[in-house]
């Protein structure tokens, strides 16, 4: 029974990674940049919920919506101020700028909220699910996390495939110049992508903090990196890939912690990433890009 419990916890953690990875993968696919600050947007999302729900006593669901709105504004602002001036510059320059933004968000949080760990109260207050006469308890937050991430993944896939903006995104990701010539507003499309990615980050932040109820300015950092690994794992740029990558990563991490070594769990996760990339250099569901000679 404990194996099943570990597995379920892994899926839950993986769903959070998947949500973050979806944001990473969309931004990467469309703006062709590694948004290193994405993990820190999660952290800000967590703080917003903490302040509004625990501090001001607003209804948790309303707090989540406030947080999503705040992160959306934040994401779009970051894109406008820091990334857009660098459109067309070396990818490395954009990467370093994203790192700068990441430092900035961490330090703003440090100044505003302090470095102490905030005890985050679970916003999911539903009853836990007990199976097999209480031998297997599945926390309600776990169930909610998994369901939410599946809904978002399906919704996003639908959005990208079926809506006008979604198709504009695909066009921009294929060829920015050509998309512009076809009358697509490239800057606007990229801004929308950041808006979606950042609001997902807010959701991820809430679920992450509900499952692991401690919040510091550095909370988003490691999950951010792991989610990026998940996105690469699944094939960066691919929405189902990010989802599968996230879930697999969470499961592998939790099972390694339980059965091999908690200290080596990260090393095992990273080793598997390396093996996957060596066998399939574009990730599980990534597309192969041919170089024209």
């Amino acid at each position, binding site marked *: 029974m404990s194996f099943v419990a570990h597995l379920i916890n892994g899926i839950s953690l993986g769903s959070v990674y998947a949500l973050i990875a979806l944001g990473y993968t969309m931004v*990467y696919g469309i703006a062709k940049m*590694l948004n*290193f600050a994405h993990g820190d947007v999660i952290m800000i999302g967590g703080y917003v919920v903490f302040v509004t729900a625990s501090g001001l006593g607003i209804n948790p669901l309303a707090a989540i919506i406030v947080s999503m709105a705040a992160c959306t504004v934040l994401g779009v602002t970051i894109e406008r101020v*820091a990334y857009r*001036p*660098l*459109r*067309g*510059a*070396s*990818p*490395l*320059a954009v*990467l*370093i*700028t994203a*790192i*700068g*933004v990441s*430092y*900035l968000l*961490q*330090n*703003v949080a*440090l*100044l505003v909220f302090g470095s102490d760990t905030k005890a985050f109260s679970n916003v999911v207050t539903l009853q836990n699910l007990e199976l097999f006469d209480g031998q297997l308890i599945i926390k309600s937050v776990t169930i909610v996390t998994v369901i939410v991430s599946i809904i978002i993944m399906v919704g996003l896939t639908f959005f990208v495939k079926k809506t006008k903006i979604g198709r504009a995104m695909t066009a921009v990701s294929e060829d920015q110049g050509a998309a512009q010539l076809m009358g697509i507003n490239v800057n606007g499309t990229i801004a929308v992508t950041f808006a979606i990615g950042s609001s997902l980050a807010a959701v991820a932040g809430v679920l992450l903090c509900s499952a692991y109820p401690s919040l510091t300015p550095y909370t988003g950092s490691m999950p951010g*990196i792991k989610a*990026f*690994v998940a996105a*690469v794992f699944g094939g*960066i740029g691919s929405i189902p890939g990010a989802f599968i990558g996230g879930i697999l990563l969470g499961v592998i991490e939790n099972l390694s912690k339980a059965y091999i*070594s908690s*200290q*080596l769990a*990260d*090393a095992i996760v*990273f*080793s598997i*990433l*390396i093996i996957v*990339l*060596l066998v399939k*250099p*574009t990730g599980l569901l990534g597309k192969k890009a041919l*170089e024209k*000679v």
Partner: protein
Amino acid sequence: MDMEMKVNKSKLSKTTKNDLITYGMVILTYIVVQLLVSTGHVSSLIQGLLVPFCTYVIVAVALNLTVGILGELSLGHAGFMCVGAFASAVFSLAFKDAMPSGLRFFLALLIGAAAAALVGFLVGIPVLRLRGDYLAIVTLAFGEIIKNIINVLYLGVDSRGVHFSMKDAISLHLEEDGVMLIKGAQGVTGTPNDSNFTVGVILILVTLFIVLNFIHSRTGRAVMSIRDNRIAAESVGINVTKYKLIAFTVSASLAGVAGVLYAHNLSTLNALPKNFGYNMSIMILVFVVLGGIGNIRGSIIAAVLLTLLPEVLRGLSDYRMLIYSIVLIAMMIFNWSPNAVFLRKRLRQKFLPGRKVEKEEA
């Protein structure tokens, strides 16, 4: 024939002059700092930072070899530093009383550099097949794996030989006279303090000598040709895998040298996210990018200035890292934004018309 001689001479003297300026800058800084220290103008805080400065300069120059010359993005150089640091610290601790400190440190250097080179080589074989961001994330992964493994590594030596375990100290079954060398997450304690500012500056000069001569050699040209156009390089018979590996291994081994310097400046060596994690790799990358990709002298200046900046801002206490990050973003936009680049070009044409005309044709 006349033409030929003239061109060759001017070319040689140009690169040589450039290199000499770099060496001179380091030596001059060293002299100035020593003078300031001896006249008591340097706070003990900054004095304590002199060796870390050297460490960062070395690892930044090493990383620039990978990023600027080889043209691949590595986020794992802190891992190579870590290998160099631990390999050399273990050696120095084991032979603490067995040899004079000068010889011991020299051997420690060789061991640290060799260990990091070996790991760099082994990591490079699979990693260098990947491209761009994939390569970056895999080097990051390797860096984290190295740090993780060292954190669970227990190593001890006794009369029966060397023992190691990845579980705990007890499983080493050391005898009474045994000595613990690596104590898992507690790391290595009691490494002799063999490094100082002078040693650091000498190592910077050695690193510069290796990297600059490497760049201007046949091997360096082969590496840069791969960076500029891999397919064309192959078409003229350059063995891409071989030269990528050579450059990556040399770069890793120099990062190992930085690790040796770092380890022998501390009595306790731990593999923490702060010193050997991906955050450190990123910080080094920031030095390289801000100093100018492929610009070795720039890396040195950026490493020193950016390490100094938070210390200078220390008076602003809580706000210093905030300012640091804003400065970083602003500098990136100023240096790299296509609009800013265009503007600078226009200004240069306006005010410095005498320069060699750079033709701009599509």
